[in-house]
């Protein structure tokens, strides 16, 4: 069985042979550890694939990972003070409600980057302004949502033309331990947006993979209703027990292992964490995948420990 076949057996609850595992290395992590990280990558070809020494440009960051400011296709101004990590939006093109009325989203295909719907709304308006919009519910709120959605639907149409097996989306819906807006308002304003986008994916035969940082427990059922097939939630913000309660068996979970703790844990902690996650979320029919993102502050020994641990637990069978 190929890795891809096994991956989709896991996402489709089709009895995978092993738990799919994935480790992501941020550009800043490569820039810090360089050849030493390359050694680890070459030790674990099952995780990283075959790697040719020297094939990574340690300091060659893609555009948004570079230090400085840039303006995206929506007119949002990004700033990055930490090369190799994600920046954030510091300039919002629609600070006043009246700006929404004349706003025109990008006319061409610009992609669906992380932060395509909910985050895009506050990238455009500013976080506090958007929260006040959700409190007061002026017509401009729905107007803005409609404009962003209309563009996004066009993006999805373009995305699914290639008939992918899976369409990948990322939008951080939660704060660390709460949803920013009431779940009822989320269901009223945002769920229909995701549902329309994801329906197009399903119609084209693509599974829907969605990443969200933050606490989303109260809306996981709604994300499933909206068409999410594979959810990538954070352990730390949601809790394994809550995820087991609301998501296990209902949606495939690509578990975002607790990267907020990786820098501080020992290898033994890492193993205990993965063991606990697997024991709580594993089912023989599938529905569990494991993901670990490594920032530059994670010690090399912990990166290696995570790789070893994932290799050990990928064959967990209860």
């Amino acid at each position: 069985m190929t890795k891809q076949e096994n991956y989709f057996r896991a996402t489709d609850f089709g009895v995978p042979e092993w738990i799919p595992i994935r480790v992501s290395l941020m550009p800043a992590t490569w820039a810090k550890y360089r050849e030493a990280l390359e050694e680890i990558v070459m030790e674990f070809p099952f995780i990283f694939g075959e790697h040719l020494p020297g094939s990574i440009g340690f300091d060659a960051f893609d555009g948004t990972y570079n230090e400085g400011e840039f303006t995206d296709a929506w007119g949002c101004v990004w700033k990055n003070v930490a090369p190799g990590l994600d920046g954030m939006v510091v300039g919002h093109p629609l600070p006043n409600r009246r700006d929404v009325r004349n706003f025109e989203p990008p006319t061409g295909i610009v992609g669906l980057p992380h932060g395509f719907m909910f985050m895009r709304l506050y990238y455009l308006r500013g976080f506090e302004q958007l929260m006040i919009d959700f409190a007061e519910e002026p017509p401009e709120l729905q107007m803005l949502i409609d404009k962003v959605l209309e563009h996004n639907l066009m993006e999805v149409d373009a995305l699914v033309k290639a008939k992918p097996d899976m369409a990948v989306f990322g939008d951080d819906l939660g704060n660390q331990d709460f949803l920013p807006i009431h779940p009822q308002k989320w269901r009223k304003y945002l769920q229909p947006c995701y549902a329309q986008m994801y329906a197009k994916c399903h119609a084209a035969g693509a599974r829907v993979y969605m990443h969200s940082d933050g606490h989303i427990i109260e809306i996981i059922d709604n994300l499933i209703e909206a068409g999410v097939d594979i959810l990538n939630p954070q352990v730390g913000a949601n809790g394994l027990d809550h995820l087991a309660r609301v998501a296990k068996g209902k949606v495939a979970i690509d578990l975002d292992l607790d990267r907020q703790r990786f820098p501080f844990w020992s290898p033994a902690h890492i193993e205990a964490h993965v063991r606990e996650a697997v024991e709580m979320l594993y089912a023989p029919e599938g529905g569990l995948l494991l993901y670990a993102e490594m920032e530059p502050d994670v010690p090399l020994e912990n990166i290696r420990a995570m790789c070893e641990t994932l290799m050990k637990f990928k064959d967990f069978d209860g």
Partner: protein
Amino acid sequence: MQNYDELRECVIAGKKAQVAELVRKHLDEGKTAKDVMDNGLIPGMAIVGKKFQEGEFFIPEMLMAARSLNAGLEVLRPLLEASDVKPVAKVLMGTVKGDIHDIGKNLVAVMLRGGGFEVIDAGVDVPPDKFVELARENGADLIGLSALLTTTMPSMKDTIDAFQSQGYRENVKIMIGGAPITQEYADEIGADGFARNASYAVELAKKLLGVAA
């Protein structure tokens, strides 16, 4: 004479215009600005904090309440200044060096202002020495350090160390917060406290400064 129930309810409901109007009404009836603030506005905001902690209120409701409270404070401000009423304490808030995330920091500032604190916003990506400099300049009683990223958490320790090395640590209490922060980390770096969100930050600030809740 009216009691403050209606004023508190209007703060909680985020009714900005009504809050300003009721504040004027209480003043016209002879209440002092300090009394209206301490017994009307601030208790209203404290209930908002509780509702936020209990999951009844979310950020929009919190911000609406804060705006209504500000509308009341605008009316009171000239009177408070004329009678030399001091804020509960001065808090210097900032996101630490290397980190430009400000949503959490801004929410904490909103809630602290709602608790009667004066908040000096140092902004984002604030170097350790700048925190010390601003604390001295403004006579801050409490320092609030925010970080969203694990990679910038060491800047919190650097900031605390800067207060220590510059001989100003004894003059201030320091609290920390942000998505990856834990009480264990606060203890490890010598912070005086950790708050897991904006509402708890007000309780912690009062506790650290010995202010009645």
